[in-house]
């Protein structure tokens, strides 16, 4: 019991001395006052340690100048115009310029080439007739509408004005166009997966 007591005392004492040495700096030797340093220790006198650093007033300005020069260099570099995004449709892919892919040109008989030329002329005439018929039909329809609006005007100005107003709910107007076969009732379309490999360019 006396041994443990003495041990405790020692520990308490060591604890008490430890903080005081810690407060006075990293040196183990407990210095009573900062102005009386023992001879063997490093001369870290208070004035030396406590001396403030000479602040060169030129320094912040120098740093600012450096930073400005860096910024100007960056701006010069950034002034380069951005690279144009290539239009992929206008670039012929290298595959198409491959010579091994060319077909042998066909040899047409005279009758066949004549037949083709005549068919082209017939087609031209047919399409022209179609176009003229279309234009006439549209003109007739416009004439019918003009007549209708005239009659409406004769009837009542109010109805005429409300007829002339545009319909804001009409557009956007979508309608599924004709396909080759009509839609199947109760058709379950199979689920499809696809990987989108379009190239996205950023400027």
């Amino acid at each position: 019991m006396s041994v443990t007591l003495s041990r405790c005392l020692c520990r308490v004492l060591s604890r008490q001395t430890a903080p005081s040495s810690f407060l006075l700096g990293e040196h183990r030797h407990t210095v009573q006052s900062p102005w009386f340093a023992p001879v063997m220790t490093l001369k870290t006198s208070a004035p030396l340690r406590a001396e403030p650093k000479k602040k060169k007033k030129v320094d912040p300005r120098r740093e600012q100048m450096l930073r400005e020069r860096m910024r100007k260099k960056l701006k010069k570099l950034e002034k380069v115009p951005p690279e144009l995004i290539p239009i992929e449709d206008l670039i012929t892919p290298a595959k198409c310029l491959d010579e091994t892919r060319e077909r042998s040109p066909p040899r047409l008989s005279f009758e066949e080439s004549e037949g083709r030329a005549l068919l082209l002329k017939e087609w031209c005439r047919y399409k022209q007739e179609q176009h003229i018929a279309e234009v006439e039909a549209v003109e007739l329809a416009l004439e019918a509408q003009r007549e209708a609006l005239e009659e409406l005007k004769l009837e009542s100005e109010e109805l005429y004005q409300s007829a002339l107003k545009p319909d804001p709910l009409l557009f956007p107007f979508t309608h599924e166009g004709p396909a080759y076969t009509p839609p199947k009732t109760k058709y379950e379309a199979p689920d499809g997966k696809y990987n989108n490999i379009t190239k996205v360019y950023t400027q």
Partner: protein
Amino acid sequence: MAAPCRRMAARSLFHFLSFSRTAGGNSGFRQFSSTSVHRATLQTKSVTEKASSPWTLMAAVCLQRLPVISADCGPIERKFRDMMLQLELEKSLLSDHELRLLEDAERMSRKQADDYDSDEEDERGDQEIVLAQDLEDSWEQKLKSFQPALRVTADADKDLTSLERCLADSLLLVAEQQVGGEKLWLLPQTQWQEGETLRQTAERALASLPAAGFKATFLGNAPCGVYKYKLPKAARTESSVGTKVFFFKAILSDSGPPAAPNAPFLWVKKDELQRYLKPAYMMKVDRFILNL
């Protein structure tokens, strides 16, 4: 006799003023004075008009079902299409698939040659060589296993009340309605009521068809055609000389539940219209129905 004269004078004055106003151009003061005079006549005219317009107004709807499948090609169109396909094939380059076919054919011919050395071939390891021809065959099999719906069904074509007839043409809705004592086939119409625009009347005409759940998109507020007829002299009175029917175009968006077989309306093509409509009516209606 005084009343019609006054009305006619007012109408002619109105016409003159409206003509002068539109032809006036940019002459500021003169235009201003003419419009003030015009407004005064307009007020008197509208009062007289509302009191005694001899025409009854009706609105009709021209409902069209647009084609569902593409039309068949005519003879010249077929010939031209074949020629174009041939030309395009001749002017094109060989595709990847065709190159593969050629390579396979070459390899087969080399294998069958007498001096065949398999070591000369490129190393393929243990991969199975899938011939391009096999791929083609498998694709054809897949296509055959899909059965598309028939383009033309003869039975549906003859049934005039069904919407599935003549999928390649645009169809028009024609209804049988009571008009002044007799039942006529015409585009569905009703009479205009005070306080609504003519387009609303046309929408009402469509909705009031018996047993029909059609959903349509009306194309604009303006009428596309007009048909006016005067009542026979015996039926004419001061207040009703005749009727003006204004037509509004609409496109069918949803047919709704199938109609009862005895419903009094038909879906007809433009060429079949002649059988059902009266000749004078047909002449006016013919103009704005485009069969493009």
